[in-house]
């Protein structure tokens, strides 16, 4: 086989490898589904003992994060949510964390360690059911100022997606 032919085969193989890797990436993309339905209301007690009622945040854009301390992708997202709360909070943005941990102790430790700057409460299966089931983590919802679910995000989501969606909703009345 000539060296030129070997080179061509090599290049073709590289292209195929590149396309395979790119294909795997797109296959692993999290799902984002639009909704428009009114978000189910709930009242929970947060880690500081304060009542958190979703409907009290009408007028704000809310990012509702179902997460757990043992969930790697959730832990990756949380520093971004802290940053988003800092950046967009003054414009009417609020993150609410709903931990799906089986008890509050590790949640408390995590919240202190990572300096969570938004309310965090421990949820349960009944609350999860009302949001269409949380059968895998993380699951996030962005809720508009009118209390409607703008979108549901299943799985680890690129923070630029949250950022873009939140900025778009904050720009609306």
């Amino acid at each position, binding site marked *: 086989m000539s060296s030129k032919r070997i080179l061509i085969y090599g290049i073709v193989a590289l*292209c195929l490898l590149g*396309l395979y890797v790119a294909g795997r990436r797109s296959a*692993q993309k999290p799902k984002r589904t639009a909704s428009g339905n009114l978000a189910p209301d709930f009242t929970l007690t947060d880690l500081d003992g304060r009542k958190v009622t979703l409907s009290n945040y009408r007028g704000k854009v809310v990012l509702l994060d179902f997460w757990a301390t*043992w*969930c790697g992708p959730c832990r990756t997202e949380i520093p971004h949510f802290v940053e988003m709360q800092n950046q967009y909070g003054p414009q009417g943005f609020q993150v609410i964390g709903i931990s799906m941990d*089986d008890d509050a102790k590790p949640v408390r430790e995590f919240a202190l360690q990572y300096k969570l700057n938004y309310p965090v409460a421990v949820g349960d299966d009944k609350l999860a059911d009302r949001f269409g089931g*949380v059968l895998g983590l993380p699951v996030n919802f962005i809720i508009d100022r009118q209390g409607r679910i703008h979108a549901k995000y299943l799985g680890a989501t690129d*923070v630029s997606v949250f950022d873009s969606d939140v900025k778009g909703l904050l720009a609306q009345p």
Partner: protein
Amino acid sequence: MKRICLLAVIVLTLALSGSAVAQAPVLFDGTNPVVFSFQDAPSDESIPQARLITPDQLVKALQAANQKPLVFEVGPHTLYAQAHIPGSEYMGAGSSDAGQQKLRERVKSLPKNSAIVIYCGCCPWGRCPNMHPAYVLLHSLGFTNVKALYIADNFGTDWVNKGYPIAKGD
């Protein structure tokens, strides 16, 4: 020839750089990017391939008239309460002391060749903190017929949404 080489390099570079970005999240503002990395528990990817069972295979095994495996859920209770495999037993998170203790107690009197399937489905395969510790525990206790249910994404996507049977509650 040069064009082909250039194209190949571009395709490969784009694909590989995209993967790298996906695995190393940075702060969104772009002005002062900080890479966060967290040490996850040992990965379920280290469970030998031969010890994996797919959802389809498990459904068939559970429908078989004889030799049904014991199925243990080694994930969080919130997940189990929402939906679980009918007949499966809740053990608790395999990564927790309580989950490990309950699993140890449950299998104490079982023959070492018992057919056991463990599953979680809280997180994508490779990111689940519970499967690997539960598998290692059963292996260390001498169980020789343990299988891990391969759930690629999560229990909702890979079991419930596929229409496999579920039960709810405790």
